[in-house]
């Protein structure tokens, strides 16, 4: 990184999140640190139960019921976890926007799309006519034809892909510094996914919005992210620039994920499964959480928890990586 890098819009700093002991034996998030700079797309990749969704929701101050936290989640320098209600509401209205997997879950089905798009603007004092004009601009920006007509329609009159564009348009209404997207295209068809992703990429380029992109799809992350964080059992196990991560993974889990993802290229090797299954919340392994599934694990791995350490241009949390194993 050189000195001209833009300031971070999001810094998650050693975030730890625990549920009451009867609901989980291990922390949901265990010392997660992550940075997103303006204009940067950062991928957060992991399987179900890795904690990726919990981590990204924490950015909006959305925490699971009864959870206890340590560490900080700073947006533009202010810690989200210690904000009061009013400050949180302002954060969600102006600084951070979120796009979820299911667009239907985030839109009131009884209200017109126009109301959904303008309510935030009008709440912050924009006159109705200006808000409507702005909503039309936004719909146009996300590639909805006939924006004026669209404002008068109800959510059920849109397909999933079109509605996801509406949600993105609403997310951009306040020109947030950070967009958090939690599997925004998982429920969509591939061709629609391509359209939505190209909209997100273009908006980022035009507006310099930082984006945290949460996905289980490595191929998708490799296609759009500048840097990628890989999560496993509530911990960041590896992070580096996308090209380096995919060309030379240092953590066996990353390498395993890459090997088990089916690839479309002719002659691509058959996906090679990772044995076993992800660590459940009821298990609290003493050492490296991946050790039980790891082909490279040695006795030490089951006892010592590896810390994130610099390997190459990025970081990996693996005892064997320090020994320079080849994956």
């Amino acid at each position, binding site marked *: 990184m050189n000195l001209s890098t833009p300031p971070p819009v999001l810094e998650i700093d050693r975030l730890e999140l625990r549920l009451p002991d009867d609901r989980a034996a291990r922390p949901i998030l265990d010392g997660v640190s992550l940075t997103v700079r303006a204009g940067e797309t950062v991928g957060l990749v992991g399987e179900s139960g890795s904690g990726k969704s919990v981590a990204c929701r924490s950015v909006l101050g959305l925490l699971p019921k009864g959870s206890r936290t340590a560490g900080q989640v700073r947006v533009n320098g202010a810690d989200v976890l210690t904000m009061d209600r009013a400050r949180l509401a302002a954060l969600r209205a102006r600084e951070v926007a979120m796009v979820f997997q299911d667009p239907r879950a985030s839109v009131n089905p009884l209200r017109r799309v126009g109301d959904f798009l303008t309510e935030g603007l009008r709440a912050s004092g924009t006159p109705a006519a200006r808000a409507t004009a702005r909503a039309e601009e936004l719909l146009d920006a996300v590639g909805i034809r006939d924006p004026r007509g669209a404002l008068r329609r109800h959510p059920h009159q849109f397909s999933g892909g079109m509605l996801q564009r509406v949600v993105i348009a609403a997310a951009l209404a306040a020109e947030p510094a950070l967009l958090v997207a939690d599997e925004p295209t998982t429920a969509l068809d591939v061709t629609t996914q391509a359209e939505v992703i190209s909209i997100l990429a273009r908006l980022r380029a035009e507006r310099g919005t930082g984006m945290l992109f949460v996905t289980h799809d490595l191929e998708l992350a490799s296609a759009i992210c500048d840097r990628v964080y890989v999560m496993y059992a509530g911990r960041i196990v590896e992070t580096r620039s996308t090209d380096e991560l995919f060309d030379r993974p240092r953590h066996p889990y990353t390498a395993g994920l890459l090997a088990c993802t089916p690839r479309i290229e002719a002659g691509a090797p058959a996906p090679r*499964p990772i044995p076993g299954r992800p660590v459940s919340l009821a298990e609290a392994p003493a050492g490296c959480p991946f050790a039980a599934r790891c082909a490279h694990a040695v006795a030490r791995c089951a006892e010592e928890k590896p810390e994130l350490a610099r390997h190459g241009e990025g970081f990996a949390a693996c005892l064997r990586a320090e020994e320079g194993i080849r994956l």
Partner: protein
Amino acid sequence: MTTVVEKGLVVDGLRKRYGDHLAVDGVSFALPAGGSLAIVGESGSGKTTTVRMLVGLERADGGTVRLDGKDRSARPRNRAERLARARDVQMVFQDPYLSLDPRISVSGCLDEVLRLHTSLDAAARRARVADLLDRVGLGAREAAALPRGLSGGQRQRVAIARALAVEPRVLVLDEAVAALDVSIQAQILDLLREIRREAGIGYLFVTHDLAVVRHVADDVLVLKSGQVVESGPVDRVLGAPEHPYTRLLLNSVPRRGWDPAAVTDRF
């Protein structure tokens, strides 16, 4: 049509209409015995409706389905015919969390199928259940469990074992790995490959995922709005697609260096 009895599954001119909407519009294909065919398409392409007609969950408005020359398009006339058809084609569903009866244990679930389709006594069925579970990589602990005690991948293994219990000729896999984590998905794909090699069951893969198609199927059928737009061997269709829609699908698959804006010049 030839008078020679064809081996395998032959589907000819299958049609299904819902109101004004033609969901499946003259779909024809053949799956040779022990072959593997992928049906790909996006939502609304009619791929799921097509296979639901094959297993009898939907009634076709037109067209024929034959397995080894036996017609299975009309409603089964009696119990024997119904059971015979069930032994021909079985299905694994997409959502492992909804495809098992929540009240019935894993071994009970397999035992039921064996009771319906075989004349084995209780001891023989128990042995067969253990066999089937072993084949999909599950043990005694899972056998006694209720579905809610199992992970998604384990449930999908149970669903596969349940389908295999009747020793079908053709196994329909409707997005059977789509709901699973990638590391588990690869395990299930591996398992399916192994089963096919040992048992010679024909696979009909319904999927939206072209990368999966590359690794599981010999042939592929691309559906759009209820019609077949392209079909052929996987290497040919994915390597040198002829139809613009197939090309669009292929270009939409994310990969490194992918430019989503180039995929769609709609705006």
